[in-house]
């Protein structure tokens, strides 16, 4: 098992956000983490990366417990995060953003540039001057440069133009075909469900449903996703 999240509870100060989230991911699997806004998806991701350490419960990555590890060590174990809101380093060039994150492995600058040719075209441009879509490509590219075993995408296509969204989804499918494990949060079910191997649904900070996309019925979607 690559990722094993066991009954975690996480708090923002005195306010509890997660009340018992649990799910598991196998190597090479794509898991869609779903739920309406404010149900705990981003908090779960922050907890996995230890950016928001859970107060109780346990998280194992490749058999190693991550809770007592600082965030940079969790990342070094192989957890690559593409955070919500395309958080690049604005005053660094595209090239600098990518090489700053680089760790040895299959993903090199050339492969990232092949996946997103636009990044190669914008090599020396400051990240702050990129379009939203290009910044998102850079955020994905930067996470890939860390050579993760698990890529976490938090709302990677939110607020992007439809054409750019297609580019991002195409990249995600390529990464899946390449055998990369991906935990993805996204609202576009028409794109998300075909690419996911399994879905995990959160409601009010708890895991309420888990299964394959074909068993996520219209009734369940209506109940948990408000669609």
């Amino acid at each position, binding site marked *: 098992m690559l990722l094993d999240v066991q009954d975690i509870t996480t708090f923002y100060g005195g306010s509890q956000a997660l009340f018992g989230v649990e799910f598991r991911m196998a190597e090479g699997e794509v898991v869609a983490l779903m739920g309406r806004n404010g149900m705990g998806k981003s908090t779960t991701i922050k907890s996995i*990366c230890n*950016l928001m350490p859970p107060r109780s419960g346990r998280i194992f990555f490749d058999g190693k417990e991550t809770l007592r590890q*600082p*965030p*940079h*060590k969790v*990342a*070094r174990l192989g957890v*690559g*995060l593409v*955070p919500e809101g395309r*958080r690049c*380093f*604005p*005053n*660094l060039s595209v090239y*600098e*953003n990518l*090489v*700053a*994150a*680089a*760790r040895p492995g299959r993903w090199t600058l050339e492969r990232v540039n092949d996946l997103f040719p636009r990044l190669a075209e914008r090599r020396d441009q400051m990240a702050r001057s990129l379009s939203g879509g290009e910044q998102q490509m850079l955020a994905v590219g*930067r*996470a890939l*440069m*860390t050579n993760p075993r698990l890529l976490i995408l938090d709302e990677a296509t939110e607020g992007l133009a439809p054409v750019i969204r297609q580019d991002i989804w195409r990249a995600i499918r390529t990464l899946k075909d390449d055998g990369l494990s991906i935990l993805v949060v996204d609202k576009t079910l028409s794109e998300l469900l075909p690419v996911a191997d399994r879905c995990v649904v959160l409601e009010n900070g708890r895991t309420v449903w888990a299964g394959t996309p074909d068993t996520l019925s219209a009734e369940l979607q209506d109940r948990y996703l408000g669609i």
Partner: protein
Amino acid sequence: MKRETIINLVLAALLLAVPFIAQAMGQTFTITLATRIAILALAATGLNIALGLGGLVSFGHAAFFGVGGYVAGILSAHAFSGEPMVLGFEGTRQMLIVWLVAITAAGLLGLLIGVISLRTSGVYFIMITLAFAQMVYYFAISWPAYGGEDGLSIAVRNQFPGVNSMRPLNFFLICYGVLIVGLVLSALIKASRFGAALQAVRQNEVRVASIGISPMPIRLTAFVISAMLTAVAGALFADLNRFVSPSMLSWHMSGELIVLIILGGTGRLMGPVAGAALYVILEYLLGGLTERWQFFLGLILLGTVLFARGGVIGLLAGKVRHG
């Protein structure tokens, strides 16, 4: 070629040309001014690695500058008197050895100060670095063996292989050569993966952690390299004046180095050179008119901070690279 690169090359060429012209005109004092510019630029280039790239506002770099100066002074004094130091070492008058010892001493001191001060940030970091520098300053004052408050004279300038360092132009060329090495090192750091990570740490620590970079080792390495480079400048400064005193360790000196960087352009490769040139020229020109020349420097600094945040280089080259 980028506009900033052209400006950098012109500035480097100007600094090299002026002493030769001064030599031809018999103006030795101008060579000394150019040497002073090169040395202060080297010290500020060191600080610029920590401050410009890493965002570490060290108010204690005078400690490294002064340590470099005292290493030059102490080694030279023992070599001159023949009186052995610790472990029977008789001192040296060779600049290359002096620089090596200065780099080692400042590196160790930088490591000690960095390990403690880099656990803090913002105003606390500024205050801790200042406190450490003041500790070194008061230690120098209360150390009578090496002149205490009066400082220590260097009877004859230290030697460089194959060069008569007593000739002003030769000594300038030594300082200029070291400055160029320092600038190349600074440029290489900036262009490297380490430099990118250092700038990323400056921009957002949490984001950096999420890509597997621990901010502390990156910052500490930058701080130590920065200290080492500043110490070499200190050793050269002591050789220029043939005198070293606790004033090299005072907080005024730390402030002066920060002012040089702000005037020239924070984070810009040649910012320290432009800043040092402006500072020394102002000191010479305005200092001849009034004792209170620093009042006018203050006005210029105010103008730079308010209207030209990229400093002289930013003003000439346009767009500010580091915000």
